[in-house]
């Protein structure tokens, strides 16, 4: 564990900042995702989760700051950094006129992998994710859960050291969620690193070893799950940090 390469964080963000016009979206954000950790990145809607992860994955150029994947600067040496990283972006379309197996094959070939390996891994991924039956269906006919699963397969096909997943459980049914969770847990157990964003505290508390809480573009807390949640549970801690909205006011006319 002492060799420098193993102590380099899988993902290190230092001083990341981004403004959209006059509005600061992310401000001077520092975050370390240790190797082998299962990192939950939580925050309310519009807190800057997707902006941060986009800057870490090469989708959005930061105004300032550095993003490093296993010690490689994403913005200085993009092609090397991207090799070590698998990405599931939120709110983006897939090439949905391809079939499920075509899409995963495409992702593998784009990464420069050879045909046999891609074919083998595509079959494995589709089997593990329960998509074998739908391998030949167009992705546009997939349900929300199936779409997330095929996107995840595309992100994992090159066996990256780090998986960056933006909202992997959004709009996913419990059965698919369990499948995804199982796959991610075995990936982490075998030495992989995952950072995922979510606003479902319960899920993060059950799955993650580390947590970072972001609100209004600033990191409010980060560390291991125990360090962040302290004596209470994650949701209570989260609401403490982020603050309630609307106080405890009631709607007088909404009493039936």
């Amino acid at each position, binding site marked *: 564990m002492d060799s420098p390469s193993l102590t380099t964080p899988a993902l290190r963000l230092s001083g990341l900042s981004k403004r959209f016009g006059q509005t600061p979206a992310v401000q001077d954000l520092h975050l370390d995702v240790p190797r082998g950790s299962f990192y939950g990145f939580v925050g309310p809607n519009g807190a800057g989760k997707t902006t941060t992860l986009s800057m870490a*994955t*090469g*989708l*959005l*150029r930061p105004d300032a700051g550095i993003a490093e994947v296993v010690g490689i600067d994403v913005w200085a040496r*993009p*092609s090397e*950094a*991207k*090799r070590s*990283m698998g*990405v599931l*972006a939120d*709110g*983006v*379309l*897939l*090439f*949905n*006129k*391809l*079939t499920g*197996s*075509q899409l995963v*094959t*495409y*992702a593998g*070939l*784009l*990464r*420069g992998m*050879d*045909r046999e390996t*891609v*074919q083998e891994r*595509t079959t494995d991924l589709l089997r593990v994710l329960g998509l074998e*039956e*739908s*391998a*030949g*269906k*167009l992705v*546009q*006919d997939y349900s929300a859960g199936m779409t997330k699963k095929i996107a995840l397969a*595309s*992100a994992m096909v090159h066996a990256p050291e780090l998986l960056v997943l933006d909202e992997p459980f959004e709009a996913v049914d419990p059965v698919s969620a369990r499948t995804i969770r199982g796959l991610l847990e075995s990936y982490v157990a075998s030495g992989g690193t995952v950072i995922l964003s979510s606003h479902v505290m319960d899920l993060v508390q059950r799955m993650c070893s580390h947590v970072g809480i972001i609100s209004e573009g600033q990191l409010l807390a980060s560390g291991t799950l125990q360090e962040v949640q302290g004596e209470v549970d994650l949701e209570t801690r989260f609401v403490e940090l982020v603050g309630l909205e609307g106080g405890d006011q009631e709607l007088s006319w909404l009493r039936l």
Partner: protein
Amino acid sequence: MVASLIRLKKDLTLNSFNQSAWHILGTVFAGLYGLGIVVTIFVLQIGSGSPAEVDPEMVRTASVLMGSAVFLVWLIVPVFISGADTTMNPRQFVTYGIPRRSLVLGIAVTGLISIGAALTFIWLVGQVVHWRWDLAAALTAALTLPLLLISFSLVSQAVTTSISAWLSGRRSRDVLAILALSVMVLAYPIVIGLETAFASFEEALPAVVDFLALTPLGAGAALPADAAAGNWAALGLRLLIVAATLGVAVLVIRAGLVKITEQPSARGSSAAKNATGVGLFERFPATPWGAVAARATTYWLKDTRYGGTLVVLPALVVLAVVMYFQLDQPWVLLALGPFFGFTLGYAISADISYDNSAFALHVTTGVSGVADRLGRLVGLMTFALPATAVAALVPALMFTEPSVTVALLGVSLGMLFSAAGLSCLISARFTYPVPKPGDGPLSQPSGSTGRLMAVQLGTMIATLLLMLPELALLAVWLLGDVSWLVWVLALGSVLKGLALCWAGVRLGARVYERAQPELFQQVIQY
């Protein structure tokens, strides 16, 4: 309720201008263009209606033809823009439980708040001026003005509503739009056919006008003519036709709204075929560029937005053949080769815009600029190369000597390569809005029509400049009668095109790699 709907339409329209300066510019241009046409017509209406030298038959013919054309425009336009973009799609109101009568009325009235309605209003006022030489006719024109305007709006809304209610499937809408486009392209052959049927166009005109005046298309516009002629029975009959049209439109809208709001259907998925294997990915090399080429070719086959841009090509072949038989001039057929070359080469100038946010996969996998550019170019060439060669060779072999055939083939392929090379750079540097994934090929891209027009105009000019050497050589060859120049022309054109492809891929790749995130952020907004 109706007032609320009008306010909503007003707010939606104004808000759409806040999106970008390009959108305002596009709307202003479109508005000015329409205004130009309408003002020209208005001036003609003033002239032709001048009491001193009026020809009643002529005024009637012009009125009915114009009226039918306006009616057709109102009828056809919704077919093209009934994408997700229509601001007042009845489908949006499903959850509100608005009384049906208010909804029908509100939707009909809001249809009148548009540039098209304003232009139509000017034309209708022009009609009153057009008939000013006869008091009864002018009065009829003035009194029926609101009636006509409302009937246009209702008919248009009936089309929109029916498409939304019964043809909401992607495929049926694409088919409809392509059908409408084909009809428009084929209008010329149809006119030619009518002309041959009636010996001459002038002879056919009265029969056509009389026929149109008895259909919903021209009945409204023919009303003042009946008043001028004092033919009150005909006027009554035509009023009945207009009223029946209105009634049918309202019934259709009502039935459509009932279907939409009271029996909403889930968006059905197309009957899913389960293909085995990975299709074209097996046919192309297992490299990043090969994968991009396989994906591009798959999309050319499966995504109607891609094929839709090429629907004009077969239509042009038909048109050229008809024109050839009409004019007996082989050049209309010989022009097909270079034209195919340009259209096909230009077809990849928006390929990244077409990807929309799916382009994220290219960004996050770190695929190199050269692989991305080259793959899309190869994907296009798999079918563009043979198509252009056939389009150039078939007419040339039929009509010309071997030397011209060589020149034509060379210039056509050169055109294809040059335009494609230019597109490789354009699609990475100057993106423009296109229909979103899942929309039909002819649905309106949202916003930024101004940018679209600017990029297209720029591309045209750049292509023309790039083809100058060929034009110069062609001129020298034709004037100087130097036979060996044919080979210089043919080979030179192809080699220059290939060089442009190489340069386009190189430069495009450089832009792509330098500005990849910016490019991504730009195309996700389309």
